[in-house]
């Protein structure tokens, strides 16, 4: 078993106590883990695998099937560029390319300073505002390629 610190162990135990009430669904378990840690640490999978006697392979099978789960830590600000139909037809691919150029990372990566992660998503259902970029919880509507830098610069920590 991988080492876990007492703090982490406490958090894992809290998640575990909710899980019993959750009818044994490992998707909601993984969602809870990600809610606490921001991603799914390998240690947490190891811990729950032993605790629940569920093979790790099942956890990884589910984690890699659903796009919502992150196996690596994310940046402080998660940048989601919508590539849904409405946004795409209004040029969101160019916006994504500009962000890639600006942050110097590819989709799925995190900047070296841990500030931004970049994700391309398929439709967030805010098509009336297309094209949109979502950073953290902020929705930036009707983004233009020339404004990309200005938007990113607003996030300074």
């Amino acid at each position, binding site marked *: 078993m991988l080492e876990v610190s007492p703090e982490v162990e406490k958090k894992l135990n809290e998640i575990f106590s909710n899980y019993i009430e959750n009818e044994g669904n490992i998707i909601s378990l993984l969602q809870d883990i990600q809610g606490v840690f921001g991603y799914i640490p390998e240690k947490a999978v190891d811990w729950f695998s032993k605790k629940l006697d569920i093979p790790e392979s099942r956890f990884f099978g589910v984690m890699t099937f659903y*796009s919502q789960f992150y196996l690596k830590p994310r940046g402080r600000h998660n940048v989601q560029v919508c590539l849904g*139909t409405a946004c795409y037809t*209004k040029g969101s691919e160019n916006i994504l390319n500009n962000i890639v150029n600006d942050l110097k990372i590819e989709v799925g990566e995190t900047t070296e300073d841990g500030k931004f992660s970049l994700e391309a998503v*398929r*439709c967030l*259902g805010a*098509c009336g*505002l297309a094209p949109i970029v979502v950073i953290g919880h902020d929705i930036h509507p009707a983004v233009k390629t*020339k404004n990309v830098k200005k938007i990113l610069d607003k996030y300074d920590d």
Partner: protein
Amino acid sequence: MKKQVRSNIMICAGTGCVACGSLKIREILQGEIKKHGLDKEIEIVLTGCNGFCAKGPIIAVHPDKIFYEALKPEDIPYLVEEHFIKGRPVQKFMYKEPEKKLAIPAMKDIPFFKYQVLRVLRNKGLIDPENIEEYIARDGYMAAAKALTEMTHKEIIKVVKESGLRGRGGAGFSTGLKWEICSKVDSDVKYIVCNGDEGDPGAFMDRSVMEADPHSVIEGMIIGAKAIGAHKGYIYVRAEYPLAVERLRKAIAQCYDAGLLGKNILGSGFKFDLYIYLGAGAFVCGEETALMLSIEGERGMPRSKPPFPVHSGLWGKPTVLNNVETFANIPPIILNGADWFKSLGTGKSPGTKVFALTGAVNNVGLVEVPMGTSLRRIIYDIGGGIAKGKTFKAVQTGGPSGGCIPTELIDINVDYESLAQVGSIVGSGGMVVLDETNCMVNIAKFFLEFTQAESCGKCVPCRVGTKRLLEILDRITRGKGKDGDLELLENLGNDIKAASLCGLGQTAPNPVLSTLKYFRHEYEAHIKDLKCPAGVCKDLIEYSILEEFCKGCGACIRVCPSGAITGEKKKLHKITTAMCIKCGACFDVCKFNAVKKE
């Protein structure tokens, strides 16, 4: 009793308007109203999505239903003073008709609203979705009460079956028939599931219903549960819709408090518990067998049918799965009867349908129209025509499973049969309008990229076939298309449709096949002339600066991310093609149309 007020200000708090700052508008409105001592007379209500998403933030002032759009925080003090103190509605914040720019004050006169018939969206913009009393005040839970206390399960099924309601998730199967089959299966446990995994890109009908009127979905589920004899239900919502999840959670909690969920609902002896399940980002989970596996906590991979879920569904028990919009249709059918429902729509597709109208139209938003309404009415009257003076090229319906309908077919009626005849589908209701700046080959590639990435990989035709289709399309958009590619696309596409396991693969080639049918010349231009007529495909276009228009303002130099543009101030600028990454930023920023794309 609720207090009587002179006027209600309904502020749209749907995702779109919130993103445009509607909560800030509310805050300032509250302050201004209070400042003028009007807070006893005027009540501010946050509503769900109003549907006119492109014009946010939106408010509607009742009882006159004066509609204000695109408000900014600094507009509010003036608005309050003029409208609420002096009684003069403010024209400059109203909707203007696109041609003559005349202000239209009342919602009912604005073409976007005028041609809509609201049944599913009956409460949109009228109630606070987080307040069960407001739903009840608009006949909410009357249908559930009628179904639970006055009707047998057979009577419920009979009305729903006679109404002719067909599943609004895309397949269009008779809802009443589905319920009837499940009700006849003998089992101690049955489930009813609401499919809120609205994955089609460009579609947000279900999101709006769940956000604006969550109780209508819950009420539909209670009635369905009684019809089939289920005592447990699940609402499966995609994780990308946090606001919908929050509103549903609140609504369910209110129902338990009000005795509308749980044991002995409304004293009828009927027991029903409802749970929410969050998806985790997988398009294929919108397919019913995959969705159920996902609720069970597994990888959501579809299985072959039969057995159908009505016989063996969630945890192997008989299960009815319906779409959000289908459930929201149920309460008025129970209250008003089957004939009322059939009074709108076509013979085979009765009722109304909600569409998410997006893309190149002026009025982007959510529209509900009777089935059988013409595409022209939806795009030109409700949608206000094509934006920015461009021309209509095609409309894509039904998302990644659907197809593109060209200009010459704009007068067809929108219903299940008519759209199927021209190679598209109603689907869940996405409607993306395309203009001449959209490349049809690129659009087909876009959808294939999506379905290919979302294919679960279980069956070979879908997993490998979509990959190969995508490779060919990619080749064509890069100017490397070959003779015979188009025939290969058609053959392969038809094989994938015939051999795939679930709806994802069976429909994935549709965008390719329908664009090949109506826009073959565009494919040929890519392959034979190495040109992208719409100027989209990067490998087939080049940017240059037109000498006669360039003013040397430097805007393009500043915006170019790769430093490919050079030139002194007030002198002709130049693009070094070798350094150009073809992002189009210069084209967008130039005010003098001096950047040429060909």
